[in-house]
């Protein structure tokens, strides 16, 4: 067992974990932050995306011990109290989700995207989401959602 201390959504958390405990399982099963999902086991789908020290990462491809000392932000930590994050608002306004399973990871990736590029083109948005699969929406409303958050939505 190894001791890890992480700051998750602004709160410091210390726990004993097996070294092989994946960050996503640590978040979900030890911290009960079940908003981060698991959608594959080969690091493609992005359902498990969280921010580690401010950058998007697939929590299924990271051991909790590797993130020792890091700041982790999950979907649960995105809103400011009752005020939704602009991307959460965008996904709601633009119908950017259906079953909702990919949504937390998709939103966290979009946070990374807009941090890097606050006014992305449509093509940049689509490529910025290369690491996230959605099987429900066909992505068009997700693109709209990101544009909504970025304030780049064009009237069709």
């Amino acid at each position: 067992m190894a001791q890890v201390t992480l700051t998750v959504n602004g709160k410091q958390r210390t726990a004993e974990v097996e070294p092989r405990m994946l960050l996503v399982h640590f978040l979900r099963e030890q911290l009960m932050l079940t908003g981060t999902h698991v959608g594959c086991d080969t690091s493609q789908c992005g359902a498990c995306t969280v921010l580690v020290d401010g950058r998007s990462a697939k929590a299924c491809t990271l051991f909790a011990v590797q993130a020792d000392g890091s700041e982790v932000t999950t979907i649960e930590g995105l809103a400011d109290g009752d005020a939704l994050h602009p991307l959460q608002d965008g996904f709601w306004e633009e119908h950017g989700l259906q079953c909702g399973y990919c949504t937390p990871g998709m939103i966290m990736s979009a946070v990374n995207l807009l941090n890097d590029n606050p006014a992305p083109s449509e093509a940049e948005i689509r490529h910025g989401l290369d690491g996230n699969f959605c099987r429900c929406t066909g992505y068009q409303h997700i693109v709209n959602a990101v544009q909504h958050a970025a304030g780049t939505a064009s009237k069709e």
Partner: protein
Amino acid sequence: MIPSAFEYERATSVDDAIAKLAATGGTGKLIAGGHSLVPLMKLRLNEPTTLIDIARISALVGIRERDGLIEIGAGTVHHDVATSALLGAQCPVVSDTAATIGDPQVRNRGTIGGSLAHADPAADYPAMLLAVDAQIHLQGAGGPRVVAAEDFFQDLFTVDLGPDEIITAVRFAPVRAAAYAKLYQRASRFAIVGVAAALEVTDGAISAARVGLTGALSSAVRLSGVETALVGQPATAATVATAATGAGAALSDVSADLHASEAYRRAMVSVFTKRALEGALARLSA
């Protein structure tokens, strides 16, 4: 999917990492970003007894100019390579190549050293490192060692890296007239074929050419036949088209899988050699 159990240690320096690695007697593995290793561990295709985490060794991270060369620390993540202003200005093919790897999350964690050590035959970096004629800097208990990229990639998942050695950096002389062209495997986003080409041109004629290929064989190689066909010729579209034509046909032991047969891969080697060379030419005039 769940990996089997292992011990975990964090190395504080390169020397510490080498010592810890040696102590595992060959059953340990270094981990930086883990984006090559962790997926294999989850599938239990790789079951190290100990992981030695080198991600926080600051000496391994960063992109800088040194002795007229550009050095990329082995622990530098793909995202930083893809967005480096230094590389963008002096050797954009490196950034371009990094930008084709995986996806944003993978690029945020995966490192150049990890990619090279893993030596996936369809990885993108090896082709580019061959084209820029990079040196791979290693360190082991016996001290540092430098291997030319051309000698480093040996076979399927096999590189010139001892069991107790660590990759510390890659260095290369910047070259502006270079480009990477890649046929994506649509599922994995690895390269079915990836070609990097670098040209040196003097008075309108190609004075030197290096072309690196990934994806088509068990490991990355230089396309020396193409290079020979280029040198001494005028730096024109016609030249590169001619030189690229036979690139695929000249290869032996071309890979075949669900995504591309041997014949298709051969053809795509020629196509992407041409595209990479055209990209390099375009940089020449830019």
